[in-house]
């Protein structure tokens, strides 16, 4: 077999110039706040890299992550990612089906042993030995184990693959968990979000390709380049927060004037993602700009944080009933203490008289 071509040689044959590489990496470096020096290095490295084999496993998911990933494909700049990777297995996108599809996965695993990257979207059910979700006759649990064994790295895409996501919402009937609770001996990158920002996915993959290492990660294994900033800190509505100008409902004066959405439940202050800077759909807008508070979708357990419309300072458990119970108990205890006091006084008076 001839030495596989570098990406530079491969794309050169298709008339794609090094300028295109540089433009692509400028775009990525900007999204990762790396600067133009890094962009140049990235372009050079990318051109001499080999095409990366990627096996994409979809488990308990809604295909929203794949939708987002393919939205990074307008027929120009952003589609270059599909030239850089060889998507060897992906249920939804591949033409083959059934045994042919599974065969493609096995071939990719064999031929790129120890070098391929596994992308997972969707959580993995663990109850009943994983019987809640099966593909090609094996459970997701088995497929993950088998595929990850010889992988170079695992990228958990979306909040489900990263932290269990919606399927893991209380009471978590299927025992859904994220990848890093099952895979402990591989490099794992989490790119959460519901769905994740397309640039966060393509940028991370390109980073690995061009630098041959993982980007810097935070304590939740998220690339700091995309998840290092707090939405609230980067929000263009922040000045309204500081001035105490809030929308009180979604149709009031404040909402129309674009004031801060903190009071209608925005989770921006506890959410780390690039929505406020990169935005969505090619930089057009993001939820807060469209008038809705941040749901905190890139954080673990975002669906179980007491409600999307409950403001952050509000307690997430029912206080009223407990407080009422405590008041009744307190009153009862008070009456008892007073009665004890009265009884003592009475007996003291008696003793005094006798």
């Amino acid at each position, binding site marked *: 077999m001839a030495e596989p071509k570098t990406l530079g040689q491969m794309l050169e044959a298709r008339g794609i110039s090094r300028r295109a590489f540089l433009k692509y990496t400028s775009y990525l470096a900007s999204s990762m706040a790396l600067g133009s020096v890094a962009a140049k290095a990235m372009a050079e490295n990318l051109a001499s890299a080999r095409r990366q084999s990627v096996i994409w496993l979809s488990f308990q998911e809604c295909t929203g992550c794949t939708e987002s990933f393919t939205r990074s494909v307008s027929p120009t700049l952003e589609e270059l990612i599909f030239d850089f990777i060889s998507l060897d297995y992906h249920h939804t996108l591949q033409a083959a089906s059934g045994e042919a599809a599974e065969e493609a996965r096995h071939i990719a695993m064999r031929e790129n042993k120890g070098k391929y990257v596994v992308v997972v979207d969707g959580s993995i059910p663990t109850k009943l030995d994983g019987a809640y979700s099966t593909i090609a006759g094996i459970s997701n649990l088995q497929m993950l184990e088998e595929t990850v064994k010889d992988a170079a790295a695992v990228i958990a895409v979306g909040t489900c693959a990263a932290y269990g996501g919606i399927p893991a919402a209380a009471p978590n009937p299927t025992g859904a968990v994220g990848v890093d609770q099952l895979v402990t001996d591989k490099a794992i990158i989490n790119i959460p979000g519901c769905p994740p920002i397309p640039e966060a996915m393509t940028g991370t993959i390109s980073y690995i390709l061009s630098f041959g290492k993982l980007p810097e990660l935070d304590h939740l294994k998220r690339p700091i380049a995309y998840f290092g900033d707090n939405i609230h800190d980067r929000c263009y509505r922040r000045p309204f*927060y500081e001035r105490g100008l809030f929308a009180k409902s979604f149709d009031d004066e404040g909402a129309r004037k674009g004031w801060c959405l903190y009071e209608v439940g925005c989770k921006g*202050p*506890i959410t780390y993602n690039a929505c406020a800077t990169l935005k969505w759909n090619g930089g057009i807008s993001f939820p807060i700009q469209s008038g809705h508070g941040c749901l905190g979708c890139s954080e673990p357990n975002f669906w179980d944080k007491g409600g999307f419309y409950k*403001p952050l300072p509000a307690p*997430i458990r029912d206080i009223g009933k407990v407080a009422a119970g405590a008041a009744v108990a*307190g009153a009862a205890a008070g009456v008892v203490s007073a009665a004890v006091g009265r009884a003592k006084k009475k007996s003291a008076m008696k003793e005094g008289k006798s």
Partner: protein
Amino acid sequence: MTDLLDFARGPALQFSLAVFVFGVVWRLVSLLFMPRLKDKSVKRSGAKPALIAAVAEFFRRMLPKPEFAKRTRFTTINGWVFHVGLTIIILAFAPHVLFFKSLTGLTWPALPNIVIFAVGGVTVVSLILALSHRLSSPVLKLISTLDDYVTWIVTITPVLTGLAAASHVGLRYETLLAIHILSICALFVWFPFGKLMHGFLVFLTRGEMGAQLNRRGIEL
């Protein structure tokens, strides 16, 4: 998998508020039903109705008598500063208004953050002055108990953690917010059993004192 903030906003707040309500109601009820000696003396002529005397005494004690004004100037002014400061921070900071709204359904306008920051800074300084006064005055130091110091700590901690959380300094915001809420939980738990209970008892003690003095014809 639950994080510190979920714990603080969930079980911690629920438990501490329950302790707070239980403790406050317990102490108030037991106090009100406490056996009392009947005042068998004849009411002085010209004495005001008991309720009016009680309310009047409550307000009268907000300022010292002129002859003591100079000697108590520091405690009076400093006491006023941190009490008013705490009140403004607690009631007029937007997230706090939301907290009370979620508990009671009542809401009111908030002040801009910059004002709250300024008031918070002044309050912290005032609380520190209060402690240093307590430590530097031999008499005060002698009569101070553990209760005084614990009360001071559970009072200043929420202010400090709140300032840190609101200005996003030190740790990540969600951690700061969680620590802030937990510090308030500590305050709630301590409140009914320590000197913070004066927040409720001050009305009873001053009122009772006023009514009794009035009945005996003592003019202050």
